[in-house]
C-alpha cells in the first residue's frame, strides 16, 4: 500500500522521497519540528487516540515528538468562567511548545482554546502570537499543511461524522449550516480518500451533541437529551461507526449509547485513518 501526499506547500526543493517499510512517502522538511499536543483527557482516558495520531503523522513522513512536560491547555477551567485562574497553565503550555515549528493536536476544542481563550501572558505576547499561528487541529494540519490528497487504504464501513462545534464553527473545519457558503469538510475530504468508506449524510449536519465540558454535568438533563438526539440521527441513517475530531464529544455520545445498548461503534478520525492506511 502507498501513501501519496502532495506534501508541504513551501520549500518543495527539499522534499525527499523515502521508503520506510511499505510506505512511499514525502518526508517533511527536516528542519520542521512537530510537537504533538495530547489533551489531558486523551492522555488519561484515550491513549489509543494519541497513539493513532502519532503513528499517522509518522506514516505521513513527519518528525514528531511529544514533549513530556505537557499537561492541559486550561480549557475546562476557562469555559467554566475561570480563565483568570489559568495563567499558570497557559504559561506552562507556551513554554513547553515554544521550540516547535508546528504543534498538532487531535482536538479542535483544545486548539481553539489556545488560539481564542488562553489569557495573555505579560512579557510573552510575541511567543503567544507565534504559537497561535503554528498550532493546528489534526485534520486541518493534514489537509492544509501536509496537503494530503491521496490516502491509500480501505475502510469499508458506513461512517457518520460528528462535526464538533469548537472545531467546526470555531476553527471552521467545515462549512457551517447557518452560513451561506460553499460546502467543505476537512474531515470528509480525508475520509473519502479511503476505499469502501461510505460517508453517511445526517439530517442535522452540525448540531451540537451536548457535551460542552462542565455543561455535561451542570446541565445534565439537557446534555443527555442533546446526545440522545444526535445518536438518533446517526442511527436512523444506518451509521455503523460514529467518528469525529474530538474524543470528548465522542466520549459523551458513546457513554449514552452504551448505557442504552445502542448498536454503534465510536472511533476518533485519527484511529480510522491510521488503521486504514496501515
Amino acid at each position, binding site marked *: 500500500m502507498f501513501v501519496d501526499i502532495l506534501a508541504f506547500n513551501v520549500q518543495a526543493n527539499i522534499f525527499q522521497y523515502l521508503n520506510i517499510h511499505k510506505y512511499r512517502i514525502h518526508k517533511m522538511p527536516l528542519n520542521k519540528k512537530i510537537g504533538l499536543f495530547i489533551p489531558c483527557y486523551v492522555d488519561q482516558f484515550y491513549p489509543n487516540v494519541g497513539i493513532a495520531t502519532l503513528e499517522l503523522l509518522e506514516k505521513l513522513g513527519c518528525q514528531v515528538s511529544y514533549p513530556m512536560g505537557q499537561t492541559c491547555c486550561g480549557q475546562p477551567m476557562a469555559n*467554566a468562567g475561570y480563565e483568570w485562574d489559568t495563567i499558570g497553565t497557559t504559561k*506552562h503550555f507556551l513554554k513547553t511548545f515554544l521550540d516547535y515549528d508546528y504543534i498538532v493536536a487531535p482536538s479542535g476544542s483544545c486548539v481553539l482554546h489556545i488560539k481564542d481563550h488562553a489569557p495573555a501572558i505579560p512579557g510573552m505576547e510575541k511567543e503567544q502570537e507565534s504559537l497561535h499561528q503554528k498550532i493546528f487541529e489534526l485534520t486541518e494540519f493534514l489537509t492544509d499543511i501536509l496537503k494530503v490528497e491521496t490516502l491509500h487504504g480501505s475502510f469499508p464501513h458506513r461512517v457518520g461524522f460528528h462535526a464538533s462545534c469548537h472545531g467546526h464553527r470555531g476553527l471552521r473545519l467545515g462549512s457551517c449550516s447557518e452560513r451561506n457558503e460553499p460546502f467543505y469538510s476537512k474531515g470528509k475530504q480525508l475520509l473519502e480518500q479511503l476505499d469502501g468508506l461510505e460517508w453517511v449524510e445526517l439530517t442535522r449536519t452540525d448540531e*451540537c451533541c451536548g457535551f460542552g465540558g462542565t455543561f455535561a454535568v451542570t446541565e445534565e438533563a439537557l446534555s443527555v437529551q442533546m446526545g440522545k438526539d444526535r445518536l438518533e440521527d446517526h442511527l436512523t441513517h444506518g451509521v455503523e461507526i460514529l467518528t469525529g475530531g474530538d474524543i470528548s464529544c465522542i466520549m459523551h455520545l458513546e457513554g449514552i449509547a452504551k448505557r442504552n445498548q445502542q448498536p454503534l461503534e465510536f472511533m476518533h478520525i485519527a484511529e480510522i485513518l491510521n488503521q486504514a492506511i496501515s
Partner: protein
Amino acid sequence: MSHPTKASEFLQDAAKAKWHDETLWFVRDKRDNISKTIPEWEELRELASQIKDNVLANLETYLVEFEKNAKANNIHVHWAKNAEEHNQIVLGILQNHQCKAIVKSKSILTEECHLNPFLENNGIEVVDTDLGERIVQFLNQPPSHIVLPAIHLKKRDISELFHEKLQTEKGNEDPTYLTHAARIHLREKFLGAKVAITGVNFGVAETGEFVVCTNEGNADMGVHLADVHIACMGIEKIIPRRKDLGIFLRLLARSATGQPITNYNSHFRSPAPGKEIHIVLVDNGRTEQLGREKFKNSLKCIRCGACMNTCPIYRRSGGYSYGSVVPGPIGSILSPGLDVKKYSTLPFASTLCGSCTDVCPVKINIHEQLYEWRQEITKAQGTNTKSISMKIANGIFAVPFAYKITGAMMRGALKILPDSITYSGLNIWGKQRDLPETPKETFKDWYKKNRK
C-alpha cells in the same frame, strides 16, 4: 430557580420537548433555505453589522437627530431613563385622553418594562393584539419566544383556552376556526380603543420616522382606528438612513421565520389630522450596556429570534427556563447586564457551540459574550467551592508532576470503585452515561516505552 432545574422540568414531558425542538428546528430550517437563495446573504449580514456598529458609536448624535426630525413631523418625543419613567409617561398620556382601554401590538420593550401589569393596576384594560401574545395574555403568561410568543403551546391547549375565554366549540382544534374566533374577539377591542400602543423595529434618524413590522397587520389596525398612537422604542433601535432599511428588512423576516419579508412594514412619519403620535425613547440599562466594552454589541440585536430557533438548548428547554424577558442566547447576554446575580446561570446554559453567532443577522458574537459573562460572573461570585477546585486544577496543570499523580489517582479510582459508587447520584456524569473504560496506561506511559 436556576436554568438547569427548569430545563430538566421541561424535559420531563419528553414528547412535548421533542415536539418543541422539532417545531423550532423547522423554523430554523426555513430560515436556512431562504437565506441561501440570497447570494449576497453574508454581505448583507456584514453591512447590517457595520451599520449597527456605527449607530452604537454615534448613538447620541443619531438620537438627537431623530428627535429633531420627529418633532418637525409633529411627533411628541419623550425620553425615559428606565422602566418606571416609561410606564409613567405612557400612563400620563392615557390619563390626558381619559383613556381606559388600549390595544397593543407586540413590543418586547413593554414586556421588559412590565407595562401591562402597571397599567392594569391603574385601572386600564390592556389587550395584546398579536394572536400569540393574546393567547399568552389569556393565560397570564409572558411570551416564551420574542417572535413566536405562544410557541410552547399546542393546538389542543389553544382550543381549550378559547373554549373557556371565547366560547368556541369544545374540542374544535381547527386553526382557521380558532383564528377566526380570535379575529372577531379582537375586532371588538380594536373598535373600542382610543389609544394604540406599538413597539418600534427601526427608528430612522434622517427622517424622524419609524417602522413597525408585523405579520398580522394588528399594529396598523390598532393605530388607524385610535386617536393616539404611542410607540415605545429602545434607544438602540435607531438606524441612520431610510435606505438602510433595504438591508435590515431583507434580513429580519428571513432570519425570524424564513419569510421573504414581514407582511406589514408600516412607516409612521407624522400624525393624521386630529390625531397624535407619541414616541417614548427608553434607555433602561442600555447606556450602561453600551459602556461595557465586551458586551456593548449585544445592543445591535434586531429581535429576530433566530438565535432562539437555532439554539439546541432553547429548543429543548423552552423560553420559560431562562426566567428573563428575552430568553435564549441573546437573552443570556442581555439579562446579566440588568441583574448579574439573578441571571447568573444563563451564560452557562450553553455549550458555546457558536450556532447563535453564525445565525445572527447583525453578527453579534453571542457565544463569545456568553464566555465573557462566565468570566465576569465567577469574579463577582468570589471564592466558592467551584473556584477553589479551579484553583487547584490550575495548580495541577501548571506542574507536570502534580498532573501525573492526579491523573493516576483518577484512573486508579475508576478501576477500583464498584459501579454502585461510580454511577451513584454523586456522579452526575454516570447518571445516564457510561464512563469510558479505564486504559492500562496513559499515552505518556506508552510514549516513554515505545518512542524513547
